[in-house]
């Protein structure tokens, strides 16, 4: 296929190549900030520290009972709640996450969320995480045919449940994990979330909760 722009670029680069252009692949490993060999607890510790510093709340919980109590603490009565990745959460928790919700809140099932008035009227979105990154204190969501990632944006508050084995040390570990996944299953988009929605566009004053949630609770379950 002929493309005049690419042809022009190719021609330019042929006449005027970049010199001394070393392949950064050789030294890309030196772009690492967090050592690969951190122990599990060290990764969890660093992740928590950095997530907190970018505005997230982090909770370390022992078991499903503790989770149930924590959810009851975070979620007050009458809240409208969506759960994404419910099947995956169920598998890891050996329990239906919806069953862990306080009885007073309202669980909105996925099929209802096609309706914008439901989607934009959520108080809380609970999701699992695809991965988490210690370096930046971020969690990563993958697109999911069964459940829109958007709930974690439209809700006023986002609760993530993750496990220590999901935490990678450095952004570079995140990219190599992603590389492998894209090779086997290329049909995903990803969202890296590193804290609540924020802005400083008016006189540099920090305001939390612009378009997305004003609160991000990250629950780390004991393995």
């Amino acid at each position, binding site marked *: 296929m002929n493309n005049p722009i690419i042809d022009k670029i190719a021609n330019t*680069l042929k006449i005027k190549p970049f010199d001394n*252009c070393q392949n950064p692949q050789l030294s890309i490993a030196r772009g690492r900030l967090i050592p690969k060999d951190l122990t599990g607890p060290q990764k969890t510790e660093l992740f928590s520290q950095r997530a907190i510093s*970018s505005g997230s709340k982090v909770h370390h919980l022992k078991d499903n009972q503790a989770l149930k109590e924590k959810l009851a603490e975070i979620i007050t009565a009458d809240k409208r709640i969506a759960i994404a990745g419910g099947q995956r959460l169920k598998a890891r928790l050996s329990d239906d996450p919806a069953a862990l919700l306080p009885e007073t809140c309202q669980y909105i099932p996925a099929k209802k969320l096609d309706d914008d008035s439901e989607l934009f009227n959520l108080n809380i979105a609970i999701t699992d995480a695809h991965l988490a990154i210690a370096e930046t204190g971020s969690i990563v969501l993958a697109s999911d045919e069964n459940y829109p990632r958007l709930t974690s944006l439209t809700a006023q508050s986002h609760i993530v449940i993750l496990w220590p084995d999901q935490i990678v040390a450095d*952004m*570079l570990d*995140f990219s190599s994990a*992603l590389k492998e996944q894209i090779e086997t299953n290329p049909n995903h*988009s990803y969202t*890296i979330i590193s804290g609540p929605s924020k*802005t400083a566009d008016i006189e540099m004053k920090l305001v939390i909760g612009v378009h997305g949630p004003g609160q991000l609770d990250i629950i780390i379950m004991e393995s």
Partner: protein
Amino acid sequence: MLKTDKFYHSTVSSCDDDSLSLKLFSALDRQCQKREDICQELGDIEHFRELAKAIRNNALSKLDSCLSQFTAKAQENGVNIHWAQTSQQACKITAKIAQDNNVTEIVKSKSMITEEIGLNQFLKDQAIEVIETDLGEFIIQLADHKPSHIVLPAIHLSTDDVTKIFQDKIGYDGPPDPESLTKAARKYLRDKFKSAKMGISGVNFAVAEQGLWTICTNEGNGRYVSNKPDIYLGIMGMERIVEDIDHLSVLLKMLGRFATGQRITQYTNLTHGPCAKDGPSQVHLIILDNGRSDILASKYRDILRCIRCGACLNVCPVFRNIGGHIFPGCYSGPMGSVLLPLLLGMEKAKNVPKACTLCGKCTEVCPVKIPLDEMILELRNDASQAKMGGIIEKLSMPIGAKVMQSPFLFSTAQKLMRLGLKPLSKSGWVKWLPSIPGRWTKVKDLPLPAKHSYQSEIKRKGSGPKDE
């Protein structure tokens, strides 16, 4: 001529506005401090800058193959790729996508490239409304201003200014504080996110090997525009590409840290293509040249490494006093001073590179090591060679060179200068001079040259130790 230049006159009015520099200083000092603090985590910052530079150069050095690989992969993923050589073409493609889908309302996240091509105005003329969804961009869209900073577009406005704008344009009746104003914008824009059938964003980086691209936002609007509407269109400059996802990782480390002093922005979306159940059903991407292929062929190709972090604007002593919305294009500060003459043509922006003290602070903080001050100098030389340097400089520079080539003329000039200035001086200072030198004395006094220059002194006395 400087005197008849629009940009020059705008700098005068910007400088007259003391409140502007106050706002800029306080915001940019904070921005710099945040960058410095978080960059300490990089340890050897220089090493990271070298690495980021190598990553950008690597992609540029094989831009043709990177783009071919990227577009093939993206098409495989279901993305509609469009190529645009000019702004006009890019605007037309956008309008056509909207019209083909009966779209009359578009939500857009902050994107410098759409400012560059004048997209909003173009679509408005086609009766398609574009709503800016980044809070800063939303404010200036309501106020009909241009962005005053590539990262902080509404930095020139105070809380009171924003309150007034919201009152006039969206019927705001709340208190004048950022929190309440932000909540009002949230409410207003959520309705737009709900109703708009098409979203547009720029592209921070495209990844050749995986056919992905990223949008970084702190507010979450980038996620909305790329996820919520049925149709999503990304518009990217053809140089915004990296070879693979590891390279992206390193650049994301740099972008967040250098732009806003964050380890990474709050939301980073990696868009892969359409995903009917969890994202748009139609995804388009426009790859724009608009002069970039000419820059690639020129001695200014290093500017194509730019990742639009705005660090150079934040440290620039000139930018801190004039702000960005008076530049003759959407880019401003040091990177704008280089890009604008290249994108718009020297004639339209010849005085922009002159508004620089050549302090080099921009180059010092650039995460991808673009030699901005050197390029500004080079542009000045291009302007002078194209006889666009201004008549006074054109006449005085060769004379200066003549004087500097002759020790005799030089020492004579020194003596004549003292002779001429002495009668105008008081206690060693000259307070007024006519004509061009008067531009100096209008704002600063000029010291009277010493009675004896150092060289004439040692000629008389020798250069031994002195105890005076």
